[in-house]
């Protein structure tokens, strides 16, 4: 549960909205036709795969729901979702196979 005060939640929403728009508007609106160094463009290409896996790793390995103890159901679910996502290249296939695995594992283990 989020325990932050309402004003903080609104601040996050507003700044995230403005910040995201500025990122999207960056080249289209502000930078225009000026060229970026290739190494910057190259690095930008890797931002999602550089951020998301690191964000997820501790949540998978040390889930708050189990008090930070590694949990078989969550580890297996993460593995299945990753493999299915890599093979099918399909977001929904990954989510559905992960959810099915998770509930199956909870039923099996729990």
């Amino acid at each position, binding site marked *: 549960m989020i325990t932050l005060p309402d004003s903080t939640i*609104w601040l996050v929403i507003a700044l995230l909205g403005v910040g995201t728009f500025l*990122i*999207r*508007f*960056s080249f289209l609106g502000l930078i225009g036709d000026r060229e970026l160094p290739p190494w910057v463009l190259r690095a930008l290409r890797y*931002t999602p795969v550089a*951020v998301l896996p690191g964000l997820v*790793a501790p949540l998978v390995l040390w889930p708050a729901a189990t008090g930070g103890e590694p949990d078989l159901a969550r580890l297996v679910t993460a593995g299945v979702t990753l493999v299915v996502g890599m093979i099918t290249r399909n977001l929904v296939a990954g989510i559905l196979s992960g959810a099915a695995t998770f509930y199956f594992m909870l039923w099996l283990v729990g």
Partner: protein
Amino acid sequence: MQEGVRKYTKSAQYFEGLRYGLPFLLMVMPFSILFGVVATEAGLDLVQTMVMTTLVVAGASQFAAIQQMVDNAPVVMVLATSLAVNMRMAMYSAALVPHFGKAKLWQRALVAYLLVDQSAAVAGEKYEAEPDLPIPLKLAYLMGVLTPIVPMWFLFTLIGALVGSSIPDGFGIDFAVPLTFIALFAPMLKTLAHVAAAATSVILALLFAFIPYGLGLIFAALAAMAAGSLVEVWMSKRAAP
């Protein structure tokens, strides 16, 4: 080329775009319902959930912001992490400059507000194939693509937020966010460079987990971007004759 004439109207382009965009509904629906559920389960009210989704229009970063707020991270770190997830859009923005760089300001602002992964796909496929299409027609095509994506993202977030509060605790909904993130980045692991970036990110994020305020993740992400870039350069050098 009789069809060639009819093809070049705004409505024809719009419907051509719509046909391209429709299959994405299958991804948008469950993903946005899930966001509505997760956001309200985490404690956002209906108005906060809907304002966030219409202002940000970027699912992954919205999930990241919710997760970081649940973890009680400071505001700066919530923003740094969530905005980092959206940095790829700077690249998409750059990709659209050749096509909309000379468009009116309101058109560029609209394209920017609606810039999603599929916009970049359109730039890569449609506009590359027909670079001389006039700007209003390019815009009409893009709006067609985005019709089943952005408004539907809003609608199904609302539906998810409305049903979210009726989902009982202990349903394992806590794992919906990590699961969604894995499903999001797994299809991006197309090359060795992407895999290297992801692996670096995971290993360093775990090693740096002791660093407070989510700073460990920022360091891990920067190192991962460098790793991806280096492997890409190395691979292209190897491929060169």
